[in-house]
């Protein structure tokens, strides 16, 4: 790719970006959120037409205006969100869009190719299992196989490790190395520096749509140096001082659930004390969502008890748990946290609209709402034109700050957050972490549910691991390592 420029309105998402991949090479594409990684790859995959610049494939300028063009040119992409038909089988998903023989699906041919690809790279899949029965890791494998099946010579993977357990990451990496060894070019998009260092041969770093730098030998470059390229200044992780935990502010005792989608909880007990940060680790889909929803009052448990600040929760509703002093930040900012089509101020007062702070006898207090939103925008440095801006127009980091502000403004005794920094750039993540540590120092108990082990290790005093709806072990921060947590996450180790 040469001199790629793409603007959205006044924003230049990519400006004069050059990028090249050789056959057999794994190129890391690094950058913070909003640096232009995804835009660049969408240009390459034909989703956007570039305003300027050209794409050369094996030296020849090639016009790519649709994903069909990209596939024909030998480019395959594995998106963060999979594009699979869940009710069809593995083989049927592979054959979608492939012309069959005289109007019939070429099942035998498909089976042969699938077996061949499986042998070559260790990517084995059962052809007759419906996709809905596959684990997330297997679905990702299917996406990769799908790209290879269509004869991809260049494979783009967008944040592929976000959904995997540490052991699955190793499997993915060895498959990718094997593919590269057989002459495939691979673009690996990530913001996890240790992965990029472990896997890639070369690395291009984007910042604000420009190429900020290239790293020729990632394995021997320090993470700190690469982080500096990514965000333009040095990043120091926040120091977690010691704290003396007090009384338990949130306890769960034998909580079990059913009658909801996703993994149910099976007898979960835990306690968070004042001034303590408890991490909940686990491969996505092992009951973390149900746990977060029970604590925030979105679903009622079948069995078990929960107390907040010493008081037993009688009715599991958002209003009740909030009234007892619980602050909540949902996993999905855009769909659960905010109302994207309404002004930001509305989202910021939403959970407390009925209280005397924002209304009186059913009448809103527009001035108080506005003043509150303005004060929080200032205090949390939320970048937006004003409180009446559509919430959906804000960036992820600013939205997360807004959600944090709306909870912390009312001094919660316990804070429950899911995936607090997913999709945020390093600067915003750092800000969020500092706020958590501030709250901890003030005696707030915090539960952080997350998949990013590095983050949990930096932040938490204790880390509990969930596997198939249970807590299978809890480690003190001193004893916790990625390796030990990884073992627990796959259910390999019993009680630790």
């Amino acid at each position, binding site marked *: 790719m040469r001199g790629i420029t793409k603007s959205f309105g006044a924003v230049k998402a990519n400006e004069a970006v050059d990028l090249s991949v050789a056959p057999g090479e794994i190129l890391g594409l690094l950058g913070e959120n909003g640096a232009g990684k995804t835009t660049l790859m969408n240009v390459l995959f034909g989703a956007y037409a570039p305003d300027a610049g050209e794409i050369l494939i094996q030296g020849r300028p090639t016009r790519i205006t649709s994903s069909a063009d990209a596939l024909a040119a030998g480019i395959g992409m594995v998106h963060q969100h999979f594009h699979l038909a869940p009710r069809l089988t593995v083989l049927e998903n592979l054959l979608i869009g492939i012309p069959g023989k005289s109007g019939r699906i070429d099942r035998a041919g498909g089976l042969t190719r699938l077996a061949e690809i499986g042998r070559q790279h260790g990517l084995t899949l059962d052809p007759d299992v419906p996709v809905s029965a596959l684990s997330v890791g297997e679905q990702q494998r299917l996406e990769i196989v799908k790209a290879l099946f269509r004869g991809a010579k260049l494979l783009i993977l967008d944040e592929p490790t976000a959904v995997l357990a540490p052991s699955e990451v190793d499997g993915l990496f060895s498959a990718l190395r094997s593919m590269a060894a057989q002459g495939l070019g691979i673009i690996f998009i990530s913001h996890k520096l240790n992965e990029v260092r472990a896997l890639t041969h070369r690395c291009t770093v984007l910042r604000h749509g420009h190429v900020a730098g290239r790293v020729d030998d990632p394995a021997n470059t320090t993470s700190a140096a690469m982080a500096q390229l990514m965000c333009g200044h040095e990043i120091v992780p926040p120091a977690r001082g010691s704290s003396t935990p007090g009384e338990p502010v949130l306890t769960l005792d034998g909580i079990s659930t059913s009658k909801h989608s996703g993994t149910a909880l099976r007898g979960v007990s835990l306690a968070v004390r004042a001034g303590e940060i408890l991490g909940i680790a686990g491969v996505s889909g092992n009951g973390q969502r149900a746990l977060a929803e029970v604590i925030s009052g979105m679903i009622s448990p079948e069995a078990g008890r929960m107390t907040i600040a010493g008081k037993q929760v009688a009715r599991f509703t*958002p209003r009740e748990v909030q009234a007892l002093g619980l602050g909540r930040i949902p996993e999905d900012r855009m769909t*659960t946290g*905010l109302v994207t089509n309404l002004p930001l101020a509305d989202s910021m007062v939403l959970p407390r609209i009925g209280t005397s702070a924002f209304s009186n006898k*059913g009448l809103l207090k527009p001035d108080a709402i506005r003043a509150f939103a303005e004060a929080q925008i200032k205090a949390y440095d939320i970048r937006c034109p004003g409180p009446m801006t559509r919430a959906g127009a804000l960036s992820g980091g600013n939205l997360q700050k807004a959600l944090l502000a709306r909870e912390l403004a009312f001094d919660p005794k316990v804070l429950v957050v899911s995936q607090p920094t997913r999709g945020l750039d390093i600067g915003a993540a750092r800000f969020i972490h500092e706020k958590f540590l501030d709250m901890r120092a003030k005696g707030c108990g915090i539960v952080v549910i997350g998949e990013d082990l590095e983050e949990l290790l930096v932040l938490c005093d204790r880390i509990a691991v969930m596997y198939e709806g249970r807590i299978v072990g809890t480690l003190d921060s001193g004893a916790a390592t990625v390796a030990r947590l990884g073992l627990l996450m796959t259910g390999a180790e019993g009680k630790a």
Partner: protein
Amino acid sequence: MFRLEARPSTPAWFNLALPLLAIAATLVLCSGLIALAGAGVLESYGVMFTASLGDSYAITETLVRAAPMIFTGLAVAVAFRAKFWNIGAEGQLLAGAVASCFVGAIPMPGPLAMLLMAIAGAAAGAAVALIPATLRVRFKVDDVVSSLLLNSVIYYALMALVEGPWKDSFSGYPISPPIEDSANFPVLIEGTRLHLGVVVALVAAPLIWFLIVRTTLGFRIRVTGENPEAARYGGINVQRVLLSTALLSGALAGLAGVGEVGGVHFQVMSDISPGYGYSGIVVAMLARLNPLGVVPAAIFLAAVMTGAEAMSRATGVPAFLSDVIQGTALLAMLVALLFTAYRIRRVGAAK
């Protein structure tokens, strides 16, 4: 080639310009039909305008027709704000008409009768709207379908009523007995049909606007409509908000029926509403669900209706054109709404 592209933001003047653009497009599209009917386009629109807005009497007639559509427009606007898809304003209007006529036929002092008529009509409309809302909240029944089909149920029940037990014994026609004279809504300007209900409709619009924009109920309705998931997470009882919205919406539609009984017909017949409930949907969409916008939108449709009759008499173009204009206006507005979120971009094939 053209391609739709998401807009990063919507310019503010769009909100005002869109309905006007949609109306202009409608008039242009419908001029073809007028020409086909063999009449002059400008002449026909001219007649429509004079007959509906040309003098003070015409204006009062248009306002009398606009009143029920202001109410049904408000009913639909409120419901759609919460994404309660109330297509049943027609049935709710009829229920309101029947209830108010029933009350109005009982002898009592005039002001009390009018008040009780309004209460009974609103309650009847609300009760009808509660059916699809309850079905949706309880059993996840699609509210579009249930509220729409309920219109037929109520329409035929009304027919059965006026053909049977409620048939006016004096005239022998399938119409209900009239309400008491003292319950007739006072006429505001001598020699016109401009009645008290029209003023109530004009006052209702800003009141509903205030409710939506300035009250906690309105806040909850807006948030629930835009994102029920976030609303629930934020501690809003989404089901209760939907039921409250249905009650409010149905009551407003019921009031449309009250106005027709107390101010225009003084009795109930099966064709008491020429589809005011359905027109309410067009009105609400043209108003972009803004209660204040409902008033001009309803007046526009009313003007088209009154104007079309006069145009038909003067130029021979069938009065059905008024229905065509209504339908086209709704479609034009829906297309126009697309441009609030998207814009058309030329994808250069030459590049």
